[in-house]
């Protein structure tokens, strides 16, 4: 398996999803050899053994500066910050880096004898394909985010082309939602018959007794808080969050907002927040750890995911696991699986604001969302989702 970040280090779904899926597969007695891009100067010895089964996962690390959700610009920034001699090992630009990663990882996996080759997101697809060809085995391309999602349908043509080529070549494609499957069919022209949808899972569980008690009039005048959590990129819709926030603020100046996460839009978001007069009621929390994230979810009266195009949106599952009512962009995979939530078009910030204010005003509504939404987590375990992946493997091997 050509994956990412094991264990997950960055905020974002890709590493978490890879880890969840691999653990699920290992539980199903699938032997996984994981090939990971890995910066040699980084924390090499940070090999955390998080659960006993992980002894069964063989990890192969390939020196690379590639990061999940990379773009040419981000890669260029990073490569400039390291010594030139080291940089040459990784590749001078993103294209070269992918090439280097591909060459190396194909080489180091030649001795393996896999039954299936499974690759996650475009940067690993060529490595996956060449490895599959070398071993004469089927290739599964797993898509967590397309270039169209990341760029709001203004793709880097080269990356888009790489993706499409890999989907065409793959024996089977796993999409993380029907939403993503539709994108692959409509915008990449991929045959729907070879795409399976396996929603992301969650190993979080919700315990009503440990959940924060609803803010009641007796608990004093604690201001309600509305949360955004995600990379500050166009895909995640932080600007729409601000627009929504300013409408909520106009109606109820007591509401606080927290934007957690970092990304290149940070300066423009701060600028915009001030322009909208939100400076006194908004906090930019920066990048947060998963513990901090959990705390923010529990503090929030509601969580808003206004993504412009969200293949899945694991944060939504994390939020409901903490008993937080959620408002989800209809342009997301999470909205397919979370029934007990408000779902709005990402551009309809007025309605988004209205849903926020309704949740804040209506205690029975908030408490029902809190209680009902997490039921889906019992069904969406990684074990169940890995089960679906295993049956896809079996179909491929027997066809």
């Amino acid at each position, binding site marked *: 398996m050509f994956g990412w970040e094991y264990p997950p280090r960055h905020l974002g779904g890709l590493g978490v999803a890879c880890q969840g899926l691999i653990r699920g597969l290992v539980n199903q007695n699938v032997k996984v050899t994981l090939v990971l891009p890995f910066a040699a100067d980084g924390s090499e010895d940070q090999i955390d053994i998080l659960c006993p089964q992980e002894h069964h996962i063989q990890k192969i690390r390939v020196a690379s500066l590639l990061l999940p959700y990379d773009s040419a610009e981000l890669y260029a920034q990073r490569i400039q910050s390291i010594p030139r001699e080291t940089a040459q090992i990784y590749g001078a630009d993103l294209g070269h880096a992918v090439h280097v990663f591909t060459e190396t990882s194909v080489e180091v996996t030649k001795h393996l004898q896999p039954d299936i080759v499974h690759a996650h997101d475009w940067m690993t697809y060529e490595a996956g394909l060449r490895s599959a060809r070398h071993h004469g085995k089927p290739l599964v391309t797993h898509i967590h985010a397309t270039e169209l999602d990341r760029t709001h349908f203004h793709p880097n043509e080269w990356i888009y082309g790489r993706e499409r080529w890999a989907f065409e070549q793959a024996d089977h494609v796993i999409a993380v939602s029907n939403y993503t499957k539709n994108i692959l069919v409509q915008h990449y022209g991929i045959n729907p018959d070879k795409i399976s949808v396996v929603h992301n899972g969650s190993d979080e569980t919700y315990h009503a007794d440990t959940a924060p008690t609803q803010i009641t009039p007796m608990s*004093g*005048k604690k201001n309600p808080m509305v949360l955004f959590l995600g990379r500050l990129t166009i895909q995640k819709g932080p600007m729409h969050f601000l627009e929504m926030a300013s409408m909520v603020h106009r*109606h109820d100046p007591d509401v606080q907002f927290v934007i957690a996460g970092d990304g290149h839009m940070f300066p423009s978001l701060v600028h915009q927040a001030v322009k909208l007069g939100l400076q006194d009621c908004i906090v930019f929390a920066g990048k947060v750890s998963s513990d901090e994230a959990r705390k923010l979810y529990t503090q929030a009266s509601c969580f808003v995911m206004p993504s412009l195009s969200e293949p899945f949106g694991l944060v939504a599952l994390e939020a409901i696991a903490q008993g937080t009512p959620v408002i989800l962009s209809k342009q997301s995979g999470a909205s*397919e*699986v*979370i*029934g*007990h*939530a*408000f*779902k709005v078009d990402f551009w309809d910030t*007025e*309605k988004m604001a*209205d*849903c926020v*204010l*309704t949740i804040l*005003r*209506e205690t*029975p*509504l908030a*408490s*029902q*969302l809190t*209680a*009902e939404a997490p*039921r*889906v987590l019992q*069904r969406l375990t990684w074990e169940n989702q890995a089960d679906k992946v295993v049956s896809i493997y079996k179909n491929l091997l027997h066809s």
Partner: protein
Amino acid sequence: MPPRICLYFQIHQPYRLRDLRITEIGKGKTMDYFDHDKNRSVFRKVAEKCYLPANRLMLSLLQQYPDFQIAYSLSGVFLDQCEEYGQDVLESFQRLAKTGRVEFLAETYYHSLSSIQDTEEFCEQTTLHIRKIEDLFGMTPTVFRNTELIYSNELAQTARLMGFKGILAEGTDHLLQGRSANLPYTPPRFRLPRRKEMLIARHRPLPQRSENISVLLKNYRLSDDVAFRFSDKSWVGFPLNAENFTDWLLGGGGHSVNLFMDYETFGEHQWEDTGIFEFLATLPHIWQERGITCATPSQVINAWKHTDAPVYDAHNVISWADTERDLSAWQGNQIQTSALKAIHALGPLVKATGNPDLLRIWRKLQTSDHFYYMCTKYWNDGDVHKYFSPYDSPYEAYRRYSHALCDLKMRVEPVKASRRDASTKNIKTSRRDVSNKQHTAHSNRPKSQSPIPNP
């Protein structure tokens, strides 16, 4: 003698809410909560597919077969929508009424859940409905059917005291316990609390209370064969023809086979191309050949010459909804119960305004459909909606509804008085604040924790 066939059809349309926004609340005295375009388009769609063609067919059957008779319950809000969106539909019902072989039943005007919430309101809405039927069709209903066939012993006694001689109910297996649904039943005899009896007497829609009341039970198997299974290709009875169905009707024997269903069965739930209209058209012909007569609910009751009837003991409330046949479709979760409680809590305030427009709006918001749209019973994550709803989700239904409630509340709250109260309160509170602050400063306690003195 073979059992009589008792056909009764339910017709209702709610006033669906528009996409209300919080920013509109409290802004205007004339804010309109309802989605007229949507309501008109649904009404016209169903009119073209069901009401008009079905009524045409019924009229021709009534003219052709002297023994054919039917009963309808038309909700008051449906009749209001006829006046707004479909005079042609109303006239077609009036033509049916003129044949003299169509019975109209009484129900709550607003198709509400008032029977389980507010007895006085329940009586008033039933009275309104009876007057409406008298105005439009020139006859006074004597048999009552409650919203979604909601029924209980207590309701049967209430209806008896209101003056009805018959009431419809679902023939559920657990209450029948192996007995036939094809006989008129009687509720257990008991007295309601004195206050309630007096309340009913004061608001009784009909001139005098009845000594007895008969309960006509829906034969749900045979009714649902037509209403739900007619076009179901996986059903063992498919394709259903009028001959076979008549055999089944006779098979159970008894006094009458009560086929109760949504009128939308014809043309809307079962589309025209399923052959539902041909099926319906053939039935009276076969019944005539085989000497089977039809009877309306009041005729079924009048024809029962025995002095006693078996007891139908519905201690708990039943309905015709879902497999549960209970109230969970309307009050099964927190948002439903809170919305239901809130709308009925507004009653005294609305009535105190004496404003007929506000009263009408308040009552339109009592229509059971609003609560049904908030049902999450089968709202399993990711599953296809098993509930018909004009809205995206039960939460969207609640969002719109709660906005309407908030606005209505502001409109009915006694404005001047409350303002005066508020301003005097403010003065008092600010005085208290001062003393609080002194107290707080003295005890060095943070303000937020200072106890709120009782007024």
